[in-house]
């Protein structure tokens, strides 16, 4: 029915999605907003197919009606055989012939049911998978478009959302939605067949049946609220755990590990109690159902029994209920309730699924279109058009009249700054004076509220995306990623550029990191954990510098405290590397290390440049 997309295809879809949103901002934005609202929802065609699988399941159920008929006929014949005509041998021969036909019929119908069921379950599963994969792609698309400098949910929370919450959608679509269709089809059909034999039995079913949804809706509403709270609790528990495990060393050093154990314990206990609370409600709703279905079957049995005895003489259309008819009614009764029970079993899949949908919608809302975006996504022009003439020579940089506030705090007010092509500028100033923010502005992580930033005469809005792929950038707290040291270095390489092992070593030498890598047990193949574990802060910084140096075609150098955490000798290595990197490039370096400031270039004190800001700090 559906095939798995190959990775290549997926990439293309992904790029297409991006292009769609960047090319037509007006229409694209509304379309995207709709797409965001519909995160994790089935497409119209998928909804249709899901319903169809429900019908297939219902068909499989309905085949039980002829099966029950065959059984009733067989047992009725047995009774008739024993009591009606006495034990004449030719009769019993025909009975066993009839029995053979009935058994064969039953088996044939059974095989048919199995095929229908198999087909329905597989179909529903595939569609659910598709919806899940699309939900992941949608979340990622939004996350990728968001400015990296903007506030994000904690990484643990995000990781949990994109795995667990999306996982919860599977059972919802796979189990719940088809059951709804089955519920619409099967009980009605069974009641209609039952009416034919006995209106009273049908009435018993009709009274017990519809009461169930009423009670379940009442209980279900509570279950949904509780389940939503429960999901939040699980996400929180994951977040707390990740955070505490990351900071475990700090906790141990302050002797706070045991206290944290208590925190984790109480969070776990809260989670357990919450889960039980949700489940008790869910169990209650299925208990109501069990009660009515058990009573329904019991009443049917008692009614049929009494009418066969002749104690009850109403409930049928004239002729009294025959044994076969009564048995048939009794056999159908459980199947009347079976879809209801399956529905109830799937109901907390629904509760969890709907809660997950809300969670995902909230996530999208949080990181979605109304929050700061990367400029390339909101630009009117196609960034590819800008890419053609590129930034092949060292660009000039001009901040004119730039005003910017972050989280209610004004960082720049009417700031002007000019950097000539190929010039090296050092940014100094006390911590919090906006050095990092200024560099972020060039990368397009922040957009000025007023004024303009021009790089090589082009608006930073337009070129930022391109610039990011062509800049030597050293952040204040560089981050290395899961994977080998070599893989981390290769992240700095322009797409498709050939890289030899020598190139890597050249970059490492430039960053003063050659010796440290040679000392590592597996050299370039050394696996790095989260936060580059295994390396000290200074070592991470040098590896990050080497990674930056892999951007060889870059024409701009942006460095944020490049020598922080380094001893003098190593800092000297790094500064030597920086000197090489800044040659022939426009460079902006934020630092207060006197050794860095000794490099040739112009020094700008940001505190002075933004002097007007301090008194206007509270807007």
């Amino acid at each position, binding site marked *: 029915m559906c095939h*798995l*997309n190959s*990775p290549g295809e997926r990439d293309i879809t992904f790029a297409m999605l991006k292009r769609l949103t960047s090319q037509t901002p007006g229409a694209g934005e509304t379309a995207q907003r709709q797409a965001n609202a519909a995160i994790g929802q089935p497409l119209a065609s998928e909804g249709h197919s899901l319903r169809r699988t429900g019908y297939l399941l219902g068909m499989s159920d309905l085949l039980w009606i002829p099966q029950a008929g065959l*059984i009733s006929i067989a*047992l009725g014949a*047995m009774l008739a055989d024993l009591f009606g005509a006495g034990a004449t041998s030719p009769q019993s021969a025909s*009975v066993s012939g009839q029995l053979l036909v009935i*058994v064969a019929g039953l*088996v044939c*119908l*059974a095989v048919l*049911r*199995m095929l229908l069921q*198999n087909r329905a379950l597989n179909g529903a*599963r595939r569609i659910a*998978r598709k919806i899940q994969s699309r939900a992941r*792609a949608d979340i990622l*698309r939004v*996350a990728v478009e968001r400015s990296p400098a903007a506030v994000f949910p904690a*990484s643990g929370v*995000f*990781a949990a959302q994109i795995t667990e919450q999306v996982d919860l959608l599977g059972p919802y679509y796979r189990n719940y939605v088809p059951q709804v269709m089955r519920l619409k089809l099967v009980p009605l059909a069974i009641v209609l067949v039952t009416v034919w034999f006995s209106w009273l039995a049908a009435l018993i079913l009709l009274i017990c049946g519809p009461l169930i949804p009423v009670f379940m809706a009442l209980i279900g509403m509570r279950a949904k609220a509780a389940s939503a709270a429960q999901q939040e609790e*699980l996400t929180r528990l*994951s977040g707390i*755990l990740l955070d505490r*495990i990351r*900071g475990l*060393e700090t906790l141990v050093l*302050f*002797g706070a590990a045991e206290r944290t154990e208590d925190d*984790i314990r109480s969070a776990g206990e809260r989670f357990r109690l919450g*889960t*039980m609370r949700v*489940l008790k409600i869910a169990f209650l709703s299925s208990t109501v159902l069990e009660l009515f279905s*058990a009573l329904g079957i019991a009443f049917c*049995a008692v009614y*049929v*029994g*009494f009418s066969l*005895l002749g104690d009850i003489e109403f409930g049928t259309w004239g002729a009294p209920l025959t044994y076969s008819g009564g*048995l048939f009614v009794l056999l159908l009764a*459980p199947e009347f309730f079976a879809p209801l029970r399956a529905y109830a079993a799937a109901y907390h899949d629904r509760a969890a699924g709907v809660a997950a949908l809300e969670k995902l919608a909230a996530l999208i809302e949080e990181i979605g279109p109304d929050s700061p975006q990367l400029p390339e996504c909101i630009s009117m022009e196609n960034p590819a058009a800008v890419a053609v003439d590129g930034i092949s020579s060292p660009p000039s940089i001009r901040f004119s009249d730039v005003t910017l506030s972050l*989280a209610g705090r004004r960082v720049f007010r009417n700031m002007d700054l000019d950097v000539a092509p190929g010039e090296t500028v050092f940014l100094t100033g006390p*911590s*919090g004076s906006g050095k*990092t923010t200024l560099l972020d502005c060039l*990368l397009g*992580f922040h957009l000025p509220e007023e004024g303009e930033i021009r790089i090589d005469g082009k608006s930073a809005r337009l070129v930022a995306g391109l610039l*990011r*792929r062509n800049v030597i950038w050293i952040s204040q707290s560089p981050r290395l990623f899961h994977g080998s040291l070599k893989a981390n270095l290769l992240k700095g390489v322009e797409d498709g550029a050939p890289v030899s092992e020598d190139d890597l070593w050249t970059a490492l030498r430039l960053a003063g990191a050659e*010796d440290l890598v040679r000392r590592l*047990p597996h050299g370039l193949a050394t696996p790095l*954990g989260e936060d580059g574990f295994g390396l*000290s*802060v*200074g*070592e991470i910084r040098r590896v990050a510098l080497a*990674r930056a140096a892999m951007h060889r075609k870059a024409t701009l150098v942006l460095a944020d405290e490049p020598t922080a*955490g380094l*001893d003098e000798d190593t800092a000297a290595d790094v500064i030597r590397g920086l000197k090489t990197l800044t040659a022939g490039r426009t460079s902006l370096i934020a630092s207060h290390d006197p050794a860095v400031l000794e490099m040739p270039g112009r020094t700008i004190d940001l505190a002075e440049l933004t002097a007007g800001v301090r008194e206007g700090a509270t807007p």
Partner: protein
Amino acid sequence: MKAVWRIVSSQHQHDRFHFWLGILAAILPAVAGILLLGVSGWFITAAALAGLSGAFLNIFAPSAIIRALAIVRTAGRYGERVVTHDATFRFLTALRNQLFAAFLTRRDRHRRSGVLLNRLTLDISALDTVYLRIVVPVLLCVFTAAALLCVWFAIAVPVFVAGVVFLGAWAGLAWISVARADRKAARRADAASDAIRLRAADLVAGRRDLAIYGGLDAVAASILSADERLTAAEDVEERRATRLICLSGLVGQVFLAVSLAVAVVGAAQAAFSPALAAGLVLVVVVLPELFSMALPGLARLPRTALAAKRVSALQSVAPARTSNAQTPAIHRPGDNPPLLGFEDVTFRYPGAARDVLETLSFDIGKAEAVAIAGRSGCGKSTVAAIASRMLDPRAGRVCLDGRDLGEYDEQTLRRSITVLGQRAYLFNDTVAANLRIANADATDADLWTALEHAALVERISDSSQGLGTVLGEGGLGLSGGEQRRLALARAFLTRPKLFILDEMTEGLDSETARDVLSRFLQFRGNASVLMIAHKRLELDAADRILRLPEPGHEIR
């Protein structure tokens, strides 16, 4: 599978009473459900016979039994679910705590926290299937099957034989689902799920670096390709599970057809009464549901086994520190022992080719501030880690205040030493909670005093929430220097004998650095200080400077 078994037995040991209570509670409604239809079938047939022959039939007892069974089945189901789930979650919560505690004693604890998070939360919740979806249904099936076979045997041999054949078929399906399970698919699915999680965490936490190196799209694309692998692997598993469940349904239906034949023939041969024959047929109607119950759980067994294996691996880690019962250090009598003493300390990282420290010896006197200087990579941070007992030396000994460092209990040691590390971690929690890590009993006034010492009062009181301001992950929202100063404020809430500073003023501008350092020196009082430093400013503040030798020649 062994790991699953270990989980089962550990849950059994954790709470035997609830373990068996859950299983008993499961048997009750199952039996009531079987009997409900069986008795109903018997009753209407008996009633029909009585109606035909005019014989007397006690009608009130059966109809009362039928209604009673209906109620027992219902109440039993509720009780069973509550009891089994409660037992499981109690056990799992205990397991989670036990694992976090195990973590604290691990040496490689800060590696791959994303994966470990997976283990703690997902693996533990995956383990709920062990009892709920495997142990209870399987034992229930075994018990019910045994009971049914006994009853069938008592009724007639053909009925018993049919029962053996079809119950055997179900057992065969269960066996197939376990023995022929695709363990590789399970492993692939697990790995893909881990990859999604880790990369998603990387995408968020490292988004600045990723935006420039490699690009966010590339990570997003790699997450999507992991998602594809997950889909493919889970598809294999689920297709199998679906097929098994459908087959189980088919077995049930064929069983029904065959038992119909057996019942009719048996009744015709007067082996048993027709009423009993009808009852037998109706019992078989109920069975597929019961015997299919264990299949989904069994089909997921490979996944569960992987989770169980990882959990057991974490559990089985022996506590790292068994206090070595060495004789206490005897210091030269009459001598004033140094506050911190390193004697011939040698250290080598596991897997490394050479020692980082070789027979290093030095002393720090009371109230003395000693700076350790040396080129990056010469083991300065290792000295700090050994002095704070985060690492144990390979050889030699470390004394704190005249006693071997290994003899201190954790509480006393942590009260005696405060470390201001290179990697001061700020938690995704309020400012107050971050500070109280250092001292749980600190009042708000204490916190403000500490913030004042760290020159952070203004910054924190600027925020409308004050001490209740939540810090983003890694302390986002504060600048690098501010994060450092918050970590400093945290240290100011302690009163240790020894401060270990690991490049405390790093990343601060020189003015702030001087300010922070002088505030610290003012605050430290009589505590000794071990400073890992390379800035002139810090070196100048020390009473004595200890230069570590250059790292040994490189190993090629």
